[in-house]
């Protein structure tokens, strides 16, 4: 058995209201990839933040190389050779790659920075590990995949022995994920040990040497990829039987309910963030819009829901052209919108659930009569929806901000889908939710489809797109590069389209 390099012994950590870690003991062997698998809120990131010194444990010990080691500050972790790539990158957007990598571990003559020497070292490192990057590029101008390389280089620059990757694949295309796995293999060959945090089952099976599963702050199991399949892992992670595949009948598409034609948006720099996008969603079908984050989906979704001005194009609901930036009119024509950012566009966090449930209909009977609100009707409506959509809350008068992410999402879904809707625009509807809530929201979307609504599903989770959609449109750099029939589409094909490489091939063929 390989040498144990890092060990946690009975770590406990609680935050107000939750026990985030409860007697967590894990072990990391030298040169292995240890996958830490668990749902959102299972305590994986908390544990890693404790190891990295960002949080301090209530009790328990961290052992390095067989000796207890006190880590109170990130500084201590860095000194011990521990590096961490955070889920939200810890890069300074306006700094160059070089400045970001050397920050905190500067190459210097006395107080003066030696950028030439640092550049040499970074180039050498990127060649050794196959992490190509331009040291003088400004970080905010780089795609996320490259930003992640910068994060990994940052750790390597500090000569880490242990590298923690917190949900590293959340922002990557399938191809970029493959590249990351190659890099991870390279690293372990050179003696780096990796802790890989994720909730994606396929990835765990593809890369891990050993898997530790956490649920509700506790370690609930340990296994190896050779001994399990996705289904087992899902059950261990959730703690009950889960159905990974959404069951749905073949679509019965009807008339065109939602039509977008030639829509373009220019941003301040006159670049097209959305470039001449056209598509149609029919009654009774789900159109999935796939794409890596930041390829114009956010802007497109805001434009077609009336939240953002667009420079050209038309939006039609049931044949009628919608005026620009008039969300109310679109809502009255039967649009439901589950927005990407539920805090900014979905809820009024400080207001009670009662009001949040009637944000689209507060001015209409039965919730208002001649401009006066009917509080009784609003309250009864909330009580009913809380029950119907299984929202876990202490009361209907609780502020929306006090609910967990999954329950907040259920409030939005409840409000939007309890009305009589023709068009549903669901933008990242399950981001950050646990498997149980995801299951629920997926089933609801399929039910609406079957009831004759046109559903547009925008998601950067390829699995979600594949399991729900009837047709799939792929967005890359503001354009829809291809629309496929879901039944005939393969993961690989969509992945390539998302990365823009298929388009290049097509262009090459055309030329």
């Amino acid at each position: 058995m390989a040498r144990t390099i890092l060990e946690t012994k009975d770590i406990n950590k609680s935050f107000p209201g939750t026990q985030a870690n409860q007697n967590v003991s894990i072990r990391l062997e030298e040169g292995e990839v240890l996958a830490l698998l668990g749902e959102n809120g299972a305590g994986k990131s908390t544990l890693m933040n404790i190891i990295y010194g960002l949080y301090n444990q209530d009790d328990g010990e961290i052992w390095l190389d067989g000796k207890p080691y006190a880590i109170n500050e990130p500084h201590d972790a860095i000194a011990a050779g521990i590096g961490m790539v955070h889920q939200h990158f810890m890069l300074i957007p306006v700094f160059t790659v070089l400045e970001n990598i050397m920050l905190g571990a500067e190459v210097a003559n006395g107080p003066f920075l030696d950028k030439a020497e640092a550049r040499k070292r970074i180039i050498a490192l990127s060649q050794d590990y196959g992490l190509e990057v331009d040291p003088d590029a400004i970080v905010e101008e780089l795609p996320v995949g490259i930003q992640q390389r910068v994060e990994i280089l940052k750790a390597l620059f500090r000569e880490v022995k242990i590298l923690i990757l917190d949900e590293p694949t959340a922002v990557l295309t399938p191809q970029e994920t493959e590249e990351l796995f190659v890099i991870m293999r390279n690293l372990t060959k050179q003696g780096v040990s990796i802790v890989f945090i994720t909730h994606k089952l396929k990835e765990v099976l593809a890369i891990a040497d050993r898997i530790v599963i956490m649920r509700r702050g506790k370690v609930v199991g340990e296994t190896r990829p050779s001994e399990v399949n996705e289904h087992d892992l899902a059950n261990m992670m959730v703690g009950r039987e889960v159905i990974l595949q959404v069951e749905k009948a073949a679509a019965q598409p009807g008339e065109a309910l939602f039509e977008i034609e030639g829509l373009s948006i220019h941003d301040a720099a006159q670049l097209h963030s959305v470039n001449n996008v056209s598509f149609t969603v029919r009654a009774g079908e789900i159109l999935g819009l796939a794409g890596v984050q930041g390829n114009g989906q956010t802007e497109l979704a805001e434009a077609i829901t009336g939240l953002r001005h667009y420079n050209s194009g038309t939006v039609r609901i049931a044949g009628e052209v919608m005026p620009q930036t008039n969300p109310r009119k679109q809502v009255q024509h039967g649009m439901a919108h589950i927005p990407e950012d539920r805090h900014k566009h979905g809820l009024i966090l400080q207001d009670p659930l009662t009001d949040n449930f009637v944000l689209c209909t507060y001015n209409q009977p039965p919730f208002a009569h001649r401009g006066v609100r009917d509080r009784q009707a609003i309250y009864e409506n909330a009580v009913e929806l809380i029950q119907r959509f299984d929202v876990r809350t202490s009361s209907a008068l609780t502020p929306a901000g006090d609910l967990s992410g999954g329950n907040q999402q259920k409030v939005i879904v409840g409000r939007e889908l309890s009305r009589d809707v023709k068009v549903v625009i669901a933008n990242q509807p399950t981001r950050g939710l646990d498997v149980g809530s995801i299951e629920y929201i997926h089933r609801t979307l399929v039910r609406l489809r079957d009831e004759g609504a046109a559903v547009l599903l925008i998601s950067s989770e390829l699995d979600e797109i594949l399991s729900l959609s009837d047709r799939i449109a792929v967005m890359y750099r503001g354009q829809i590069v291809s629309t496929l029939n879901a039944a005939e589409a393969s993961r690989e094909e969509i992945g390539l389209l998302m990365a823009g490489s298929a388009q290049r091939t097509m262009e090459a063929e055309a030329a």
Partner: protein
Amino acid sequence: MSAITQTAENNNRGKNKNWGTWGLAALITAVIIFAYFQNPNVTEAVLAATVRYSIPLILGALCGIYCERAGIVNVGIEGQMLMAAFLAYMVNVWTGNLLLALIVGVLTGAVIGLFLAFLSVSVKLNQIIGGTVINILATGITGFFYVVGSTTQGKLGPIVLGPLASLPIIGRALFSNAPITYMAFILVAVSQVVFFHTRWGLRTRAVGEHPRAADTLGINVFRTRYVSTIIGGALAGLAGAFLTLEGVGSFERGMTNGRGFIALAVMIFGKWNPIGAMLAALLFGFANALQTQLQFMGVNVAHQFIGMIPYVLTIVVVSGFIGRSRPPAAEGTPYEKE
């Protein structure tokens, strides 16, 4: 690949902006040379007045840069300058020791900087309110304790830098000044190097942009903000000392007269760069000197309009030549460790 091209585009855009700035500089230089041949004495006097007016703005803007680059908004520069001016003056009145007065002025600024850092970093008070508290305190305290009629035994005199001072046009303005003026220019150069070529500068800028990232790299955000704000305070103190020990030679109530706020504008105008701020301050100082000179010469235009020149010039330059300037991302927000 595309990202690299984009960077190159940005650099080009930057160069185009520079043409505007260079064009403006060339125009002003041409006007000055022309004026010099018309009337050398007046021109030299205007240039000397430009420098005199600019110094407190340069130092005040440096104070702002040190604070804001670390993420602390300092709207209390006015108060720091006023308190420092007052105490430096009082020490001069009591002891007649100009060096001691200067040191007291700088320390006063630094102590108020420490107070602001305490309010913003430790107490996590809204930073605008913290700065406003300082301004109100300074006005109140100096107004209450100032005794009309006290006299000093002199002020800091010019040090003439030999033959340099007899250079045409710029000699009198640049090489025949009192010590704080020279110090201000040296501090600009030093600050430019500190912020962009030292470890301390890199870390301080990181703290002002993304404190959490800096924290994860083992940088002490709280200490960095304290140190930076105290250094900034010392610079504002020096600006105050300039007013009473070098510029005017005595104290009056409210004598800073908004310079602390103009310094903030100068800082923004100079895009949070020491050299940029210096150029902005000199431009503003030049406009002011010009305005005074025009009024003095009795040009036949209502004095209200002439008085507008510095402000109109600022608006034109800011809107036309400078382009977007972007503040440090984390300024004004207290850092909370999780």
